[in-house]
C-alpha cells in the first residue's frame, strides 16, 4: 500500500500534466486537421493541373501498388484527369524511389491511352542544391513531355530539345537524373499493367 502511495506522491504531476497536455494537443489537432488535409489535396491538385492543363478535375481512380527493383512495395494513387466536357484527358499517379540523398517522390502524368508521358513533377525531394535539385527545373522536365511511355534511356550527351525516349542527364547530377528515369520506367510498366488488368485502358494490341 505504501508503495502505491509513494508512487502517486512522486508522479501525480506527471500524470496530470500528461492528460492536460494530451488534451491540449487533441483539441489543436481537431481544430486544424481539416485545414492540413485540405492543404495536402490542394498541393497535389496544383501539381497535377500544372502537368495536364486541359484537365478540369481529377477523380480518384483507385489505389495501385508499385514494387521497386529491390522488391519493396509502395502504394500509388491513380487519378483520372477529366476535362470540362467530361472526357478523359489523361491519368496521373505518384511514384517514389531512392534519389541521391533521400527519397524522391514524383507525380507522373500520361495521356489517356498511356502512350505518351505528359510530364512529371516533384512532390518531395531532397537532392543537392545547385546540382541534383535541377531535376525540378523546366529544361530537364520538358524532355519528358511527349516522350513515349515506354522504356526511357538516360544518355550523358545528346540533344535535350529533341523529344524521344532518350533523356539527357543533368551534368554533375547523373545519380539524380538516373533516379528520376528509373522511378518513371519502373512505375510506368507496372501501373500500365495494373490498369489494363482493371480495364481502365485498352491492352494496346
Amino acid at each position: 500500500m505504501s508503495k502505491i502511495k509513494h508512487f502517486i506522491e512522486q508522479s501525480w504531476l506527471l500524470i496530470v500534466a500528461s492528460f492536460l497536455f494530451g488534451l491540449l494537443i487533441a483539441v489543436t489537432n481537431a481544430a486544424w486537421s481539416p485545414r492540413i488535409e485540405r492543404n495536402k489535396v490542394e498541393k497535389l491538385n496544383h501539381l497535377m493541373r500544372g502537368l495536364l492543363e486541359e484537365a478540369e478535375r481529377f477523380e480518384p481512380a483507385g489505389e495501385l501498388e508499385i514494387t521497386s527493383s529491390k522488391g519493396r512495395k509502395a502504394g500509388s494513387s491513380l487519378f483520372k484527369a477529366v476535362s470540362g466536357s467530361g472526357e478523359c484527358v489523361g491519368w496521373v499517379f505518384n511514384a517514389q524511389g531512392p534519389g541521391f540523398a533521400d527519397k524522391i517522390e514524383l507525380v507522373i502524368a500520361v495521356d489517356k491511352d498511356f502512350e505518351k508521358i505528359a510530364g512529371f513533377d516533384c512532390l518531395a525531394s531532397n537532392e543537392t542544391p545547385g546540382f541534383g535539385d535541377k531535376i525540378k527545373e523546366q529544361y530537364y522536365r520538358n524532355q519528358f513531355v511527349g516522350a513515349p511511355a515506354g522504356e526511357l534511356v538516360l544518355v550523358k550527351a545528346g540533344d535535350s530539345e529533341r523529344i524521344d525516349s532518350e533523356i539527357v542527364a543533368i551534368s554533375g547530377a547523373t545519380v539524380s537524373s538516373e533516379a528520376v528515369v528509373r522511378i518513371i520506367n519502373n512505375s510506368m510498366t507496372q501501373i500500365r499493367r495494373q490498369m489494363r488488368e482493371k480495364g481502365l485502358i485498352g491492352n494496346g494490341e
Partner: protein
Amino acid sequence: MANDTNATAGVYKETLIAGLWRENPVFRLLLGMCPTLAVTAAVKPALTMGLSVIFVLFCSNIVVCLMRRLLKPHLRILMFTLTIATFVTIADLFLKAFAPVMSETLGPYVPLIIVNCIIICRAEACASKNGLAVSIIDALGMGVGFTLVLCVLAGVRELMSAGTIFEIPVFSLARTGGWFVPWAAMSMPVGAFITLGLMLGLVNVVSKKTA
C-alpha cells in the same frame, strides 16, 4: 521602495541583455547548433524557425515557472521534455495548417525543436528557479537572440548562394547578364559550417576588444 523597483528593473534589463548578447545562445552558450546549421540556407525558413523557437520557449518557460514548486528533482527533466514536446507539436501543426510551404522546407527540423538544448537549458537554468516575470523576459531575450543570429547567418548564406535576401534580388546574377555567380556551396552544409565558424571568430574578436 523606489530602490526595490530600480533593482527589479535592473534584473529585468540584465536578463534581457544576457539573451541578446552576453549569453547569446548561439554565440556564447553554443546551444541549438542543429537548427543553426540546418535551416539557415535562406532567411525565410530561418525566421520561421526563430519564431517557432520563441513561441515554444515562451510557453514552456511560463509553464515550467508555474509548476516549479511542484517538481520532484529526479522527474524534472521528464516534465520539461513533456512540456516542450506539447508546444512543439502545436507549433508544428500550426505551420502545417497555415504555412504548408514553409513547413515542408523546414521538414523534420520543426519537430526537432523538442531536443533543442536552448529550451531545456532555459527551463533548467532560469524558469525553474525564478519568478514569472524573469522567466518571460528570459524567454523573449534568448528567443530573440537566437532568431537574430539565425537571420544574420541565413542572410549571409542566402546572399552568397542565390544573390538574394528574403527572396528579394540584391546582386544581378550572371545568368541574367549581371556579374554575380552564385556559390552553390553556401546553401549546402559546408556553407553553414564556414559561415558559423567565421562569425564565432568575429564575435570573439569583438568581445575581446570591448572587454
